């Protein structure tokens, strides 16, 4: 150490500066250490999560939805694998290059129009180049993959409905879950963009049909290339549903309704013994395959309301079909002689108002049974007045009006029974005898669904034993195990009427077809019982009702038909029922399914 001693003064200055430099470096290294501490100790967990997250890539593989079969084992709805070519937009390359499109169209021999898919069908916002490819086309694309940089092929399952128009309402359709529905669905394990059943069996049995989505979990490197597979969960196909729908009857009923005057209405065919639904038609139907392809809008705009399930949701006044209630109540309570006659002059005067028979022509002298057969309003006005609204209301409830049938389909309406209390609170006017009169013939505010009418008819056919209607017989999982089987609940409930009443009621219903308003329905060799009705519609033409069951002595099926704006019941609804019976009993070959 020479200079320190030689030049002590300048060495001291040097030492001071040396100290400054040392402190400065200490400060720099201290801040490095603090930053390190901040990153690794304070925020370590956060960064650990990010590093875990960015190395794992989840690919969803959607589960196939279950199959829906008809009663005779035909496939009504199934899911097929379909393949789609996607393009992931990336910074700088928001659109696939012309070369890719050209090459693709050369392979597939059709023009490619890229569509920006706005919904996240494939997991995120992607551009769908082609959809619904067959496996063969996929192989062809894979061969040329080196020329088609940046495209991805994904497997998706596509719902396919056979007989889509005929069975549209009973089967329903599927569509994606929208953001605003997530609130009440997220708890059930649904995710945004999943497909969910809408309407019909698809909705009611969605949890059985869904299956479980599987997927791949892959460790990827920074370029997104696969390094190794962490796990693969195969998707579980949804369960198969065996419905009770008789395709022949369904087909026949749909076509008969479609070809009726207005083409609007509903038919419900129930098996009397078990309560299963053999056919459930609402017309006009819709093509569920089209709905899948996002063409639901054209149905929403349609004034005929094809998406509206009339069989379950439309409410009509029962009209004259209601007369069996008045009939039964009168037989039970008034102890009247059914052969006692009343003279129908075509009108009924109550106070200063005149209530007329439907045809405005006098029926002449009628007993109870013939009054039922020709649907004489005057006779039933008399009965209604004698019974009074209270008794009528009790019997209306007894005959299951105003309550849901409990069918395993969604959005069933329960109908409505007007009461004096209801009128008082709603209109602030008391119940008048005139209200009782029109109630007795099923007009006014009372309303029912076609399904309810079929259910009530089936119950009458069984002498009052109530049997819940259902459309799904059993559900079978992929391995063939039965995981659900419909069981007829112990028949506890019964419509209690005296035996005499039942006999006369059945007799009169048979008479309606044999000699009454439903004569057009007569089929040689088969006895049919039923009741026509004309539901008054203040706005347009009346609705045409026909409810019936056959064969009369040993009932098998019950049919309810309504033709909207079909006019008189005997005219439009009866022939439809006749065609259904013909198909069911195998009489006419004309309506058998090809």
């Amino acid at each position, binding site marked *: 150490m020479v200079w320190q001693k030689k030049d002590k003064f*300048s060495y001291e200055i*040097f030492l001071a500066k040396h100290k400054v430099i040392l402190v400065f470096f200490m400060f720099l*290294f201290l801040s490095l250490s603090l930053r390190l501490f901040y990153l*690794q100790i304070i925020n370590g967990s*956060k*960064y*650990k999560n*990010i590093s875990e997250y960015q190395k794992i890539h989840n690919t969803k593989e959607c589960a196939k939805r279950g199959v829906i079969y008809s009663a005779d084992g035909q496939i009504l709805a199934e899911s097929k694998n379909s393949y789609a070519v996607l393009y992931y937009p990336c910074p700088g390359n928001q659109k696939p290059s012309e070369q890719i499109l050209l090459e693709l169209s050369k392979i597939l021999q059709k023009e490619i129009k890229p569509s920006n898919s706005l919904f996240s069908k494939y997991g995120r916002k992607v551009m769908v180049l082609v959809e619904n490819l067959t496996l063969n086309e996929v192989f062809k694309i894979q061969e040329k993959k080196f020329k088609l940089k940046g495209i991805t092929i994904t497997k998706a399952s596509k719902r396919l409905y056979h007989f889509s128009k005929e069975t549209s309402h009973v089967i329903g359709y599927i569509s994606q879950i929208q953001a605003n529905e997530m609130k009440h669905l997220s708890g059930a394990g649904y995710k945004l963009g999943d497909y969910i059943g809408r309407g019909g069996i698809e909705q009611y049995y969605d949890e059985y049909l869904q299956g479980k989505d599987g997927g791949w979990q892959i460790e990827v490197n*920074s370029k997104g290339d696969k390094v190794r597979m962490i796990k693969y969960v195969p998707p579980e196909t949804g369960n198969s549903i065996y419905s009770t729908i008789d395709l022949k009857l369904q087909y026949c009923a749909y076509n008969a309704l479609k070809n009726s005057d207005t083409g609007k209405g509903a038919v419900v065919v129930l098996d009397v013994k078990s309560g299963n639904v053999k056919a459930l038609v609402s017309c006009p139907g819709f093509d569920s395959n089209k709905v899948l392809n996002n063409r639901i809008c054209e149905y929403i705009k349609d004034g005929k309301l094809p998406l509206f399930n009339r069989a379950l949701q439309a409410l009509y006044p029962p009209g004259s079909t209601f007369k069996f209630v008045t009939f039964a109540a009168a037989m039970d309570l008034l102890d009247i002689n059914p052969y006692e006659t009343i003279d129908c002059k075509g009108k009924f005067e109550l106070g200063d108002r005149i209530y007329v028979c439907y045809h405005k022509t006098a029926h002449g002298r009628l007993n109870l049974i013939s009054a039922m057969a020709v649907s004489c309003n005057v006779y039933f006005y008399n009965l209604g007045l004698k019974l009074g609204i209270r008794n009528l209301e009790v019997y209306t409830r007894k005959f299951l009006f105003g309550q849901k049938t409990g069918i395993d389909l969604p959005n069933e309406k329960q109908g409505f029974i007007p009461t004096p209390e209801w009128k008082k609170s709603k209109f602030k006017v008391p119940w008048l005898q005139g209200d009782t009169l029109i109630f007795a013939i099923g007009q006014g505010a009372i309303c029912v669904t076609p399904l309810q009418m079929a259910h009530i008819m089936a119950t009458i056919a069984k002498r009052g034993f109530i049997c819940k209607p259902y459309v799904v017989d059993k559900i079978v999982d992929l391995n063939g195990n039965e995981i659900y089987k419909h069981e007829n609940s112990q028949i506890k409930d019964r419509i209690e009427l005296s035996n005499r009443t039942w006999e006369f009621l059945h007799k009169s219903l048979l008479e309606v077809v044999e000699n009454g308003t439903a004569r057009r329905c007569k089929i040689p060799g088969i006895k049919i019982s039923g009741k026509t009705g004309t539901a008054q519609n203040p706005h347009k033409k009346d609705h045409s009702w026909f409810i019936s069951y056959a064969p009369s002595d040993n009932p098998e099926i019950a049919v309810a038909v309504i033709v909207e704006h079909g006019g008189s019941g005997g005219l439009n609804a009866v022939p439809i029922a006749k065609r259904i019976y013909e198909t069911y009993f195998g009489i006419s070959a004309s309506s058998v399914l090809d």
Partner: protein
Amino acid sequence: MVQEKNLLERLISSIDVWLVLAVFMLISISFFAIYSASFAYGLSFRYIFVQAVAVGIGLVCFLFLTSFNYQYYKHFSKVVYILSLMLLAAVLVFGSFKRGTKGWFDFGFISFQPVEITKIMFVLVLSAFLDIRVKMSKTLPFLISVFAILMGHLILIMMQPDFSSTLSYFPVTLVLLFVVGANPFYLFCIVVFGGLVVGIPLLDTFVNLQLKFIQDGTFFAKLAIFLKNDKNVICIIFSILVFIIGIWRFLWKLKIEIPIVYPVILCLAISLGSLASIPVEKSLKDYQRKRLIVFLNPNVDPKGAGYNIIQSKIAIGSGKILGKGFKKGTQTQLGFLPEQHTDFIFSVIGEEGGWLVSQATIIIYFIFIWRALVIAKESRDRYGSLIAIGIATMFAFYVVINIGMVMGMMPVTGMPLPLLSYGGSSILSSLCAIGVLCSINMRRYMYY
């Protein structure tokens, strides 16, 4: 004269154990880190081999430079300077391109970057120059001649062009000037000048980048839009100049009489710096400017300039206390980290070794710097002190800039971490520098 036997004894007895230990530990860490970082490429053994050869050559140089008396550099400082200029000029003629810069001599299996060794030579030359002219250190001509020496190197390096290598020259020059007693005011003016030259283009880039991400109507948005206008910036600079003169006048009135030279030189530095920023703004490429500034908010360009910083921060942070284990870092092994065996080697250490190892690495570096400064203090002449301080500054600067960069505190400049990063030239020059340090250290008690 000293006998050969004595020299060997002295070499072993008076070597700085702490320094050598720190270097040894850093080199060991570097082998592990490079092995792990290049494992994913499947090139581990190649890289380890090249690094080992470089360390071997470096150790030979180290031993040679240790035994070589550093005082000869002072006598031959002109030769050393000319040699360094020739090296830099030769690389411009005979060098080969690597990553866009013509800065490499290619010898087939190993290539050499002369700028790494000329840095050390510059320290030797500058120290000699300062030591000889220490008496006139307060004058302006002295300063100008120092910067003339500096410019000789800088111009040749900028011609490669290698922007990041030039950066290390400035802190060394400034610190050495400070030590020999240059007027701190002049140094301050130089810093202001340099800051403006680089700062204005970077600020402009940052404002442009940030504009896309801040909402309209907020204070920052208004500020950014205000700064976008060139006229406004000129107004701001002009008002600062007026303000400085005003302060000077005010102090003059208060009888604090500062010579007029000072405010004039400061104003000159500001205006010249602002002016000089225009050609710098034009010459710096857009991506370079983005890279330099994006550390302030890497999320403005997460896939581009910000990617490296984001991934590096994730790598270091995810190591937590104990790390993910050797060869088990997902960021490293799956290729999320950029340049992981060279510039971002510290991220590998942080991820796989965790806080314990990375903090230890920082501490070892500090021990190294501290020993270098101790050597400076104990040196037998001022020349040795200056060299030691210059080398310490250079190492500290590299370490702080590199580790700061991988932790998202500093701009991404592409500077290696001395002794840790893969790279033969870097390790060779580091070991040479350490050799010079040891040479100074061993001769502290020598009288002849």
